[in-house]
Every structure is written in C-alpha cells, then in structure tokens.
C-alpha cells in the first residue's frame, strides 16, 4: 500500500514538475527552439525524421542533381536558434576544398522547423559546388574521394547565428 501511494506521489511530483518546467517559457535559453546566446548547429544525414550526425571525415554521397550540378544533401540540426512557427532563417552553405571556397550558396528565408525539446531542423539542404568551377564529368571525378569542409551558418531573425564546419570525404555515385 505504501509503495503504491509512494508511486502515486512520485507521479504527482513528476507531473507537477513537468508542468512547472513547461511554463518557464520566459527563459529562452532553456528552449532549444528559442533564440539564445549559445546557438549551435550540427550537420548530419537521415530521412523520415532520423538524424545521424556526421563523423569527422565520414564518407558522404556527392549527389548529381536531376538537371546537373553537384552537391551534398544534408540535414541541419540547430539549438538555441529561433525555430518552429513562422520562424525563418538564412542559411549560408559553403564548401571548401583545400581551404579554398569551392561553392557558396545562400538559402534565404528558410523555414526552420522545431522538434520539441531537441531543437531546430532543416532537411534536404544542398551544399553545392560552384557550377563555374565544377560542371563536367572530369570535375566530378576529381571530387571523388576528396576530403572537403562543409561550412554551414544559420542566422535567425533575432540575429543569433551559429556555424558548423564539418570535414567529410566525398563519395561519387554509390
């Protein structure tokens, strides 16, 4: 009987604490979908809600887009950047080969979605290569096996910003 009552008490405490915690919306630092000073982003892969952060130097697929152009399709996970609802962000997506910029693209007014208690998320961003430098099949072959840096910066409407630099190895085709 005492154990049962104790269990009920614990559940009540958990519920009360969870309600109280849920009401502390005034503290944006505690909400990973609210703009904050310690903004951070992570690049990774996955579909259907799965997210696996890239590991350093991980082999990633270099996609050939339907009508030409090369890029790496990434999932961007954010923390302490305004996400969800009507929140829009700018995403600067660069790729560096041997320290030189090989592609720089700005994705404007992207809807950053909020995964409650986890953070913001943008699926399917394409970190592309400059078509003026990389357009031919020989260019594609040159990129195969190259270690490059994907450099992605996300800036929210409040001006909070974070950058991720992720070293990956390009894998063409498979």
């Amino acid at each position, binding site marked *: 009987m005492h154990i049962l009552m104790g269990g009920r008490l614990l*559940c009540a405490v*958990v519920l009360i604490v969870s309600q109280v915690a849920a009401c502390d919306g005034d503290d944006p630092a505690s909400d990973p979908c609210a703009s904050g000073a310690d903004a951070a982003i992570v690049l990774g892969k996955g579909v*259907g809600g799965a997210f696996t952060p890239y590991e350093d130097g991980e082999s990633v697929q270099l996609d*050939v*887009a339907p*009508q030409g152009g090369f890029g790496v399709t990434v999932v961007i996970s954010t923390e302490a950047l305004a996400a969800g609802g009507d929140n829009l962000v700018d995403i600067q997506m660069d790729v560096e080969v041997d320290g030189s910029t090989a592609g720089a693209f700005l994705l404007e007014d992207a809807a950053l*979605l909020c995964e409650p208690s986890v953070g913001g998320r943008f699926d399917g961003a394409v970190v592309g290569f400059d078509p003026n430098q990389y357009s*031919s099949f020989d260019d594609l072959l040159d990129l195969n096996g190259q270690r490059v840096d994907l450099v992605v910066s996300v800036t929210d409407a409040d001006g909070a910003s974070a950058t991720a630099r992720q070293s990956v190895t390009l894998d*063409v085709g*498979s």
Partner: protein
Amino acid sequence: MRHRTFTASRIRAALGACVFISLVASCERKPPPAAAGCLTCHQGIEQAHGPIPPDECVVCHGGDASANTKQGAHVPVPMDWAEIRGTGLPPAPHGFIRDFAPDQLDRLDPDYVRFINPGDIRAVEQTCGSCHPDQVATMPTSVMVTNAGHYFPTLYLAGIQDDRLATVGSYAAEDPDCDPSVPGSVCALRPLQPPGAEEITQIIASGDQAAVEQLAYEHYLAKNCNTCHQAGYPRNNSPGLYRSSGCTSCHMVYDKLGTYAGSDPTIPKSSPVHPIRHEITAAIPSEQCATCHFQGARIGLAFRGIREGGFKEDQTPPNAVAIQDTLYGHSPGYYFSDEDSSNDIDETPPDLHYAAGMHCSDCHVGSDVHGDGRIYSSSKLQVDLRCEDCHGTVRDPIRPDDDGVFRTASGRALSQLSVGSDGGVVLTGRVDGAAHPVAQVADLLGEGGGASAAMHAAMAPDAAGWSHTDALTCDTCHTSWAQQCVGCHVTYDLRLEQVDYQTGTTSPGLTQGGRSMFSISDVLLGTGQDGRVQGVMASQQVQMTVVGSSLYGSVDGEILQGETVDDGAGGTRVLGEFRHRNGLEANNGFAPIFSHTTTREPRGCDVCHRRDDSDEELARVRGVYGFGTGEFMLDAPGGQPVDGLQFLADDGTALTTWVHEGTGPVEPEARQRALDVVLSP
C-alpha cells in the same frame, strides 16, 4: 563534435519524455474506448475522406481497429524490410519506405505498403477502388505511373528501337483489351532492366558498338529518369520533391518541406515526409504537380514563371533574379524568376491562368491524368485537352450538352465548367474556389465582342473562310516564352557505381548529364500531332561518352564511345557521340510542345514572317522553321560542329527523326508560304 550540456531544457526533456512514455504506455495497455479505436492515440487526426468515418481508418489502411495495443493495431514492419531497404539509402526510422523505388515496393508485404500508403498502386484495388473503380482501373496503366513517355523517345532516337512505341517503363503494365489501332498504344510494358555486371563484360568484350551505346542509354534512363512517376517514391529527400506514391501522389498535398501541419499528435511536425494534412483532395495545387514536372519539359516550372538555370556564369544574364531557395535537389540560385531586374518586363512571366489563380488541376482532369486504360507511349497521346475545349473556336463558342455538361472534343465531361449568372462560361477553381470567366473566342470576334483589328486580322476567318487557327494551334502564338536547352553531354563511366531508381540498389556505372546552353527567345515551329503548326522545343540532344573499367574487361578510363580532342588549353577533352540513327550526323530530338506560358498578348507576326526582304531577315525566319540559327554550335567528334537548333538542311532535307508519330517540320508548302510573306512596315 558538439558537447551537450545538461541544462534545464534537458531536465524538462527528460520529464517530458517520462510523461510522454506514460501516455504512450496508456495507449499500449488500455483497451480503446468502443467508439474510438485508432483515434485513442491518433486523436484529432483529420478525416481523410468525407464518406469514410474518422474511426474507420482500417477501411483504407488495414490493420486491426479492435486491437488494444499499437503492435496489435498496426500492420507490422515486414521482417525483410531492412534487407529490401539495403545500404544505398540514407539512415531512416525502422519501417520507413517513403524513398523506396518501384521494385522495392513490389518486394514488400503489400499489406504493409497499404498500411503506410493506401493510395499506392499496389493497394488501390482494395482501397480507393472500392468507391472509384473506374479511375483505379485505368490509373496503373497511365503514363504518370508507367513513365513510358520518358523511355521510348531516347531509345528510338538512338536507334535502339525502330518504332515509336514504348516497350519499357517504370512499372509492369498490361492492357488485356489493347487495340493496336489506337495510335501510340501498346499491349504491355516491362520494367527497364539495364544489363548487369556479367552482361556488361560480355558486351564490352564483343566490341559491338551499338550494344555499348544501348547499355549506356539504358543505365542513363534507369538512373536519371526514374525518380518520378507514381510507381515509387525516389528521391523524396529535399524541399520541393516531397510526395506520396500512387493516387496519393496527387490527392494528398505536400508542402515544400514535406511536413505535417495537422492535429494528430503522433505525426511529427518537424521532419518530412508527411502531407500537410491527412486529407484526400481534388484541390491539387500546381506546386504539387511540380514535385515531378520540374523535370521533362519543365512545365511545372514554366507555368509558374520559373526558368531553369545551372549554366555557367557566361550563360547567366547579369541582372537575372535567382530564387535563393533549395529546390528540387538543387542549391539556392539554380532557378530564376526574372531575366533582368533592371527593367519593368518579366521576360519569363507565369502562364496567365496561373496568374489568375488557376492550377494544373483546373484543366487536367479525368483521363488526362488517370488515363483511359490504354498504355500510351507518351503523355501527348493520353492528354487530349485542347484550348478550344474551354475557349471554343473562332467560329463557335462552347455549349453544354442536353444534360447541361460541357465536354471536350473527345467527349470527356468538364465538370469544372458551368454557365454563369451572366450567361457566360465560368470555370470554378478547384484550389481557389473562384469563378473564373472563360472567354469565348468566337464571342470576342463577334459583333460588339471587343476584339482589336489585329485580332481580327490574325484569327477571324477570311473571305475564303480560312483562319490562322485552322493551321496553327492557339499556343503557337499565345506563348510568351519557352526554354530551349541545347546540347546535353552525358557520360556513363563504368569505374563507378550509382543507384538505379528502378531497383533502389547500386549497379555498374555512374551517369552524369549537363546542358551547355539555353535560350528563352528562340522560337522554333514544327507540325504538331493534330497536323497544325505548333511551337517546338529542342529535346534530348544527347552526346554520349562511355568510359570503360578494368572491372568489366576494358582498361580503366578507356573511352569506349566518344573522341578525345585537344581542348585548346594544353589539355584534352572528350566529345560524346551524337546519335547516328539511319546514318544521320546528329539525331537530336525536337518535339512540338505547349510550354504552358500562355499570354493574352500574342507573339508578333514578325516572329514567323519576314519584316523586310533582306537576306538577314530571310535567314532569321528560316531559323524559325528549323534551318538553323548558328547561335548554338555543338562540337561533334570527327565532324563539323552541329547546330543545336537545326533540323532541316538548306535544301529542306530532314536532319533528324522526330519522336512522336505525325510530328515533324512544317510541311514544305506551308513553310514556303510563310517564308514568302513580307510584312508591311
């Protein structure tokens, strides 16, 4: 790697998880209320379809509504899901299939396919077909499922097949009642299965150049042209591409990000691939169609005033307005909404129907989209809607039949049309719900109709009873722009592998293609399928290079098709081979097409007729009829450069074959008549 700290948000997350788990557990343990069933957990989910009560999920999805647990209610993930998914696709939650290729879906337990998507063609006989048997009977053989229209033209132009009839598609189809006398229809299609490793080795060892070419084209098609169409899901991984398969690829609407905005708490709102709401609809916005139709003739782009880019900097106008958005698998800036922001003109405006709030689904209904049960070799044969079906002819406005129903010339009902309160024809928009007045050309040309003198001169029947519209389709003049893409360099390299989107698995060889030049100002004219003159688009101007590999019996990097030439900068480059069907130098594709950039203001007469009698004018107008413009010269192996917009030699001899039966250059007599006209100043 980021180091996470244990903050208040983590504590709340943990507590939230505790509460969530307790709620989920309650879903698992407690019997559902008698009237609730699936809704015990899926509280608030939208009623997908009016006639089906919200608690009758199993009517469409299958499963067991009387079960007390999620495991008991849901159709289980098949044991072989992971094996079928393989290793070529990105990490996904257990049971995720919304990026599967047609063959992968074919291998899955059909009950599970139905559970995930009752609209899939493998399930629709049990689901949608219960109430819509006519549509479900025809849909699996329609071109939107079979993809036949993308396969046979390439194979025909290359001389791999001799007739203009489809033999392969994305999905096996059979029409037991087929009638070979119906133009362009076939009795069956088989899925495209390019040669595998062993056969590739044999082909290369044989030295049969035609077989090498066929090998390359078949892999190219399977790996590049199979990502759309309703038999499967690929790619489904980037904004603008998210969609379902089968009936629901159109009738469940997805937004650009593929995320759910409805009320079911169990459906994630932060990640794709989910429809906006759990609702079947006929109000299908054009953006939904564009999830596939951004490719091919790019009608899903042009209709909305979007021009494709991806060309080098010298091909991009300095003041062009790029769309800074990741779309259709491309980086931001790939697509353009305007060619020149420094003027007040939109050089690539949207179709006037789109600008008025109409969508593809306002016109293309019935057998245009569902098919009529035949297996057509091309969408041009399945789609029979004509401008005249809504706007009438220069002689007669459209009228409803005795039952008050407006019909196409082929007899299909156009239920979206009705007679308005003022006696005029109106179209009720499926998406915007608005009543759109449908102008009748004959009324405009009639007394008091308000047609200008120029419109009378261009369209009204003359004293002999002849009208331009007898010889020209409406869109020949009422098109504001069309994008000609010239020169398509494709490489098939056997040193690498790539996912085949028919099977969902990797297979030998990587294909990559890219266009070199484009034009939005060049107008080409040819003969369309109804025998009238129509605008023509350069299409499939492939130059194929095949690169060998020691894996398949040749030397790594050996050029099996194509020619290595000096690149003029101290290096070399490889020129791919044009297609040489019947000894032609370059069998480039050209196809009459309605580019869906309709404009009220027509093209000027001087587009197709000479402004004066100078040689320059004659050369310019001859370019319109296919004698070449000299603007887009393509380097050819071992030969003279090929004009990418030329399909007639100087003496009128055909330089190319045309893919679609009955189409071709403008008939010589009509062409000469048009060339002879010199407009008055």
